[in-house]
Each structure stands twice: as C-alpha cells, then as structure tokens.
C-alpha cells in the first residue's frame, strides 16, 4: 500500500478526516483544522502553508500559450478556487499575529494565476 494510502487510513481511523468514495474528496471538521494549526509549531505552520501553496500551484491550470481565454479549464479552476481563497484567508489572519506566515514564491505565483483565470476571481 502507498504511503499516501497509509496516511488516509491513519487519519480516518482517528476520526480526523473523512473520504467520499464516490467523489474521491476529503473533508474534515473546521475545528480539527483550527486546533491542528494551533498545535503545530511555527516552523511546521510555515512549512505546511508553503506546501499547500506548492500543491495548489501544481494543480491550478495556467493560461495556455497564445490564448487569452481559460474557459476550457474553468471547471478545473473552480475545483481549486475555494481552497486558494481559504489559503489566502489564513495567510491574512496570520499576518495579524506576532509571528506571521512568510509568503513564498509559489504562494505569490498561485495568486497571480488565480487572478488571470478571471472571471472566476
């Protein structure tokens, strides 16, 4: 079994996440998210924020070369847009704390790609 499958099994058995077999989507309670962000040391908070940015950047479509439109990939953009907005919201909330998150290159690039995929944004 893959390491990722082991991770899913571990978190599901602890009741921390759920997985929908039909949609292949994962969900978790907002309070689990909040409490885990409090639990993480600042180094891990920055690391996981950076990795979330990297993964979303890898998944979010970019504008095809020579094209001004992205309507053929809007459904993919839509899939990830809310996650990007949540990432951005957490970044803004953290900016009001004593130890704010540092925006990474991937995070900034992700926001640019998101803005270019208008009118979704």
């Amino acid at each position, binding site marked *: *079994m*893959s*390491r*990722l499958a*082991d*991770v899913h099994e*571990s*978190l*599901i*058995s*602890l*009741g*921390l*996440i*759920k*997985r929908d077999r039909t*949609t*292949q*989507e*994962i*969900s*978790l*309670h*907002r*309070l*689990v*998210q*909040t*409490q*885990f*962000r*409090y*639990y*993480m040391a600042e180094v*891990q*908070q920055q*690391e*996981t*924020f950076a*990795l*979330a940015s*990297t*993964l*979303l950047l*890898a*998944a979010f479509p970019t504008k095809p070369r020579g094209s001004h439109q992205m309507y053929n990939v809007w459904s993919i953009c839509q*899939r*990830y847009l*809310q*996650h990007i*907005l*949540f*990432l951005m919201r*957490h970044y803004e909330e953290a900016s009001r704390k004593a130890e704010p998150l540092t925006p990474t290159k991937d995070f900034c690039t992700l926001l640019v790609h998101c803005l270019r995929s208008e009118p979704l944004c």
Partner: protein
Amino acid sequence: MTTRNPNLAFEPAGAGIEVPHFDTQSGSGFLIHLLQLDIAQDLGENECRSAMELAEKLDGHALAINTMAGLIHRRQWSISQFLRAYEKSPQKCHGSALDAVWRLSFESLDSDSSMFLGIISYLMPDAIPQDLFELEDASFIHKNLAFCQDEFSCVIHTRIFCYK
C-alpha cells in the same frame, strides 16, 4: 459503542450510525438551550444573531458548543459579549477542554500524516480533491511531499536509478 473510528463500524460492529454535526440553526438552538435562554423571554435579535454566528464558527461541533456554553454561563456573559471575546482570541476560548479532545490524536500522528493534516488545515474543509496529492514526481517538487509519490512511480524511479 461510540467511537470516532469509522473502521469499527465494519468490525467488530455489524453496522454503524454516523452522528453528523449540527447545522448552524440547530447548533444555535443547542447553545440557547444549554444556556436555558429558550425558556427566557425576549431573547433579543442581537443575541439570536450572535448565537448563529458562534454556532457557525464552531461548525456545529456539539462538544465545542457545550464547552462555550459552559464558559458563557460561568462568566455570566451575554452571547454577544462572548462572541466578541471569541473573535479576538479563539484559542484562549477553546482552552484545555477542546485542546484535550484532539491532542492525543495529534501526538500519535507519524510525520507523513502530520504533514498531510497540516497542509489540509489551510484549505477549505470540504471537497478537498484527493488528486491534489496524487503526484507522480512529488519528491522532485519537495522532499516533504515524498509520501504523495505514487508507489508505482516510486518503483519505476528506483529502477531508473539502478540502471544508470
């Protein structure tokens, strides 16, 4: 038996019943009930709105609502007053009661699971596409994402490195 582990609904139990968390309306009603305000007269519009907002922030989590109701009752605050304090410092309001609910689970996580949970803690809590993590070349993106690498492609890469 009651459990957070859904696997036990398969074995040893024969079946399971999932108890979902409250929706905002029910969560708000639960909070008001716990504070015995449902038998009070003239619960103001402001208090009702604050109860809804607090239930939404707690995402209908029964234990969290119960804990917050206890705090409101002990301090003899209005729901609106408590909501203002909560918005300033939710972590302080959660306190040791909620902290204890998940701390043992968090402490038991291995590094891969901790990394995964940390990442998804920054996303929308619902509808996280599983394929966000299913990367063929995850370790080339970042070493801490090596657990995302498909087992099959890991075998392929290993063979490539062996032949070089």
